[in-house]
């Protein structure tokens, strides 16, 4: 990505819809405090399924945020995306971005499963009442690309749009794709991922994953890097970022919250967790290379934290493979243990947390994890104050994709002093 060297990409807006908060402020507060919100699944029609524990987004009222014309034709996963995109644009001060130059704004999302709940409803109509009772919006609502399309239509954005379908790590690949899009000349890209995998049909699709935790007790369901690791817990929600050309952001006096510095992705095959060590290490090295970043510069790692013993071991070893001795010293965290993994949404939530962590000078804790059985410095119990200039975010997908993203703190922000950042 040589283009980035000439056109660095800034993150200027963050929007979050997560199980531990449906706005960025609440999300960060929950993450920093290690709030644990995994719970028994309460969604209708899910009670009889062997998947018991998840991170549900509760208290999210789409009708309060999104026009009815968009709601009727979209699934819950797009509701999350539209809400988060709206918040991110507002945060970036670009709510009217399309008014001036619609072609300068693009949209990229990643999606792992599409609109399962909407699709199930229409399929039930198909088999219960007949094909004439299937609504026409079924043709677009279930689709992986739905959120990109609806966010762009709702915002009036006519710049380059895309959808990354590359497994859970696609959340990071989407951010990289957005940065490349900026590098190629688009001023602003709205990028992120949100998922809604907690409908009966979607849950049945996940039951085949050997990595899925079917524990009954929320407190024991998702405990990566411990001897009690028994798989991962799925979640709803995600995050959307506004990325834009760094010079342009400075030009309009926007708060540059972070800079997308480097990315790389590899593929090592479905459920081959031992091999993911090599894949992840390559991804980390590639991302560092692109960022022009030495291993010792990494101040915090947001781990993938699959919660499967072989996968956790592979990740811990990959850190040392790629970072050398620094891999055992750098603070590592996995806030997703408190909220679950919202597939493609999970790594974007981690990017949001990493940006906020750098701004606040706090490494948030890995919720509900205590006895770490790997040679890494996992931050547990409470947030750890630290000056954070550079963050590494990792993600792996169940189908074998691995990705690493390097972020640098916004040039305008100083730790512990975000309120005064504009005076720097």
């Amino acid at each position, binding site marked *: 990505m040589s283009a980035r060297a000439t056109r660095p990409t800034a993150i200027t807006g963050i929007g979050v819809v997560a199980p531990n908060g449906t706005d960025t402020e609440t999300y960060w507060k929950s993450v920093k405090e290690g709030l644990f919100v995994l719970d028994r699944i309460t969604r209708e029609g899910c009670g009889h399924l062997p998947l018991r524990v998840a991170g549900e987004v509760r208290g999210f009222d789409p009708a309060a945020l999104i026009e009815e014309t*968009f709601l009727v034709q979209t699934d819950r996963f797009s509701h999350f995306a539209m809400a988060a995109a709206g918040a991110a644009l507002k945060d970036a001060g670009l709510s009217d971005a399309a008014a001036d130059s619609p072609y300068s704004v693009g949209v990229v999302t990643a999606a792992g499963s599409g609109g399962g709940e909407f699709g199930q409803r229409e399929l039930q109509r198909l088999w219960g009442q007949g094909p004439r009772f299937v609504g026409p919006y079924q043709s677009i609502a279930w689709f992986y690309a739905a959120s990109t399309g609806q966010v762009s239509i709702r915002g009036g954005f006519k710049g380059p749009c895309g959808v990354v379908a590359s497994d859970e790590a696609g959340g990071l690949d989407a951010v990289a794709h957005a940065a490349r899009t900026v590098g190629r000349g688009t001023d602003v890209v709205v990028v992120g991922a949100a998922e809604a995998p907690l409908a009966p049909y979607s849950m049945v699709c996940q039951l085949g994953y050997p990595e899925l935790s079917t524990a009954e007790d929320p407190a024991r369901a998702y405990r990566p890097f411990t001897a009690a690791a028994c798989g991962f817990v799925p979640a709803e929600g995600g995050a959307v970022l506004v990325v834009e050309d760094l010079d342009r952001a400075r030009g309009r006096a926007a708060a540059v919250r972070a800079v997308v510095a480097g990315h790389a992705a590899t593929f090592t095959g479905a459920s081959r967790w031992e091999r993911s060590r090599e894949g992840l290490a390559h991804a980390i090295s590639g991302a560092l290379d692109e960022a022009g970043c030495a291993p010792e510069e990494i101040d915090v790692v947001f781990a993938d934290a699959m919660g499967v013993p072989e996968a956790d071991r592979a990740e811990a070893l990959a850190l040392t493979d790629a970072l050398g001795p620094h891999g055992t010293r750098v603070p590592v965290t996995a806030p997703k243990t408190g909220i679950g993994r919202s597939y493609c949404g999970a790594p974007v939530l981690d990017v949001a947390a990493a940006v906020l962590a750098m701004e606040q000078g706090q490494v948030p804790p890995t919720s509900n994890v205590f006895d770490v059985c790997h040679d890494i410095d996992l931050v547990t119990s409470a947030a750890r104050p630290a000056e954070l200039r550079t963050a590494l975010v990792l993600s792996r997908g169940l189908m074998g994709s691995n990705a690493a993203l390097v972020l640098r703190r916004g040039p305008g922000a100083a730790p512990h002093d975000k309120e005064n950042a504009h005076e720097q």
Partner: protein
Amino acid sequence: MSSEVTLEELAALMKKAAGVTVEPHDLEARADTPFAEFGLDSLGLLGIVGELENRHGRALPTDAERCKTPATSSTSSTARSRQEPDMAGHTENEITIAAPLDLVWDMTNDVESWPQLFSEYADAEVLTREGDTVTFRLTMHPDENGKVWSWVSERTTDREKLTVRARRIETGPFEYMNILWEYEETPAGVRMHWTQDFAMKPDAPVDDAGMTDIINRNSPVQLALIRDRIEQAATTAPA
């Protein structure tokens, strides 16, 4: 069977199927406003058409989802609202033919022989035939200016229900043209009823009202001619 679509029903459907909130009186006042301006997209319109078909138990013309405004929607659903001004073209013409149903059905649906049945067609060429659906090109005799009009239509016959639905595929000067023929046996013979729903393009040489007049002038002439030719065939046909 009720075939009325009231403005209230249309407004409720727009809300349910497409999330568009609109007052019935607003639909009436803005009957010529494109649906898109009410915030209704093409899939939303398709959903309304589907819901209407399910409620009324009948299929709407295949072009129904292409209607652009509340006014045309009520027309192409063959269910005009009483309160609403009918802005698009709509004609109905019929004739009773003293001949057996089979003969009337066969002769009027033998598209290749239409040049011998109608006086207005110079040629009828069948392009494709699939089941009960035939696609064909009709060519008229030159008009007074020497222009030869020609277009492609698609017709689907339903012998059981005694109906034929047709629409122009090459619409020419028409925005759309949907035709329904209905046959009914009566004591006096077979009654053939033609219903035509259409709208002219803005740049067409005549407007909706003008085309309505043309059709209402021409159809009785053609119907009478067809009646005479079929009745003639009935008397000369071997018993």
